[in-house]
């Protein structure tokens, strides 16, 4: 493997990776995939660039304020590597459009900022058999896990029920240091490239955690759960539910983004 933009491995050059969310995690992941020469990069995000995004969403710049994130990101990726194809999906991932959006891609990167959407991605990917990388970040902590559906541990193996937004602090509530997003997003990009190239081992059955304050990287071995409601021996989740929508708010550090405000904006 020659990791240069002009000579990616054929399997990387022909690979198709979908990034859900072009924010804190998705920005560095997208830049890394373009530089690695991943042939087709899909971007999903319904939002526009806001000032409070810029401290960590490194693909966007001040001149992009108000522009759709997918458009802003596509422009930067093509500037870095004009040999890649960047497909933009300016919409919110939902149970209804997930099969259509996931279908063309080899690997999915969950770079979203909401609890429910992360479980929607997990459930959709496992039901469709689509490999993906989960990551979550908040304040000074982050974690990531790669899932090969029905072969390795999924999110539901660890957390059978979707945690309520009240139990899981969001970046909006708790804040986040921008570099943390870069650290975890880059790991996700490495997983996607390794999946395509076949090099090394994937981050499966191991939850990689990063505590920036300690500081400490640590991999916790996690096993598939026979009682997993999604990929266990007698699953209770056999289809995507339209109730699995993201009710959490975006990682806007400025704190001005309210649920009502965002919903209103999305309906425009």
């Amino acid at each position, binding site marked *: 493997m020659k990791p240069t933009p002009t000579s990616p491995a054929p399997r990387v050059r022909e690979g198709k990776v979908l990034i859900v*969310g072009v*924010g*804190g*995690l*998705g920005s560095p992941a997208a830049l890394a995939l373009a530089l690695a020469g991943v042939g087709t990069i899909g971007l999903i995000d319904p939002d526009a660039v806001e000032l409070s995004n810029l401290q960590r969403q490194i693909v966007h710049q001040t001149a992009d304020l108000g522009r759709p994130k997918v458009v802003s990101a596509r422009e930067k990726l093509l500037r870095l590597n004009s040999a890649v194809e960047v497909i933009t999906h300016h919409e919110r991932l939902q149970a209804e459009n997930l099969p259509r959006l996931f279908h063309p891609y080899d690997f999915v990167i*969950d*770079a*979203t*900022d*909401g*609890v429910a959407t*992360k479980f929607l991605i997990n459930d959709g990917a496992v039901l469709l058999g689509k490999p993906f990388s989960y*990551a*979550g*970040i*908040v304040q000074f*902590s*982050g*974690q990531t896990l790669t899932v090969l559906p029905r072969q390795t541990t999924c999110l539901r*193996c*660890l*957390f059978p029920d979707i*945690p*309520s*937004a009240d*139990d*899981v*602090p*969001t*970046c909006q509530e*708790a804040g*986040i240091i921008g570099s943390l*997003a870069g650290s975890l997003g880059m790991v996700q990009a490495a997983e996607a490239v390794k999946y395509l190239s076949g090099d090394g081992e994937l981050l499966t059955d191991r*939850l990689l*955690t990063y505590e920036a304050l300690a500081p400490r990287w*640590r991999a*916790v*071995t*996690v*096993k598939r*759960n026979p*009682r997993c409601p999604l990929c266990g021996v007698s699953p209770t989740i056999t289809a995507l539910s339209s109730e699995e929508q993201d009710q*959490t708010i975006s*990682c806007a550090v400025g704190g001005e983004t309210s649920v009502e405000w965002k919903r209103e904006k999305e309906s425009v």
Partner: protein
Amino acid sequence: MTVVLNGEERSCREGWTLADLVADLRLTGRRIAVELNRNIIPRDEYTSYRLRPGDEIEVVHFVGGG
């Protein structure tokens, strides 16, 4: 009695259950997964499992931001 919690030794009182340890960590009510000796323990079994010396426990939080 000493157990290994998230890779580090930690002393516990004799007779403690997994639920006691989780409560002592002030994690009750938060969305966590508890792994005991590399097996995920269902939430409804926290109260019935009595800790033993050398048990390896991993407490993992769900992180939802991005």
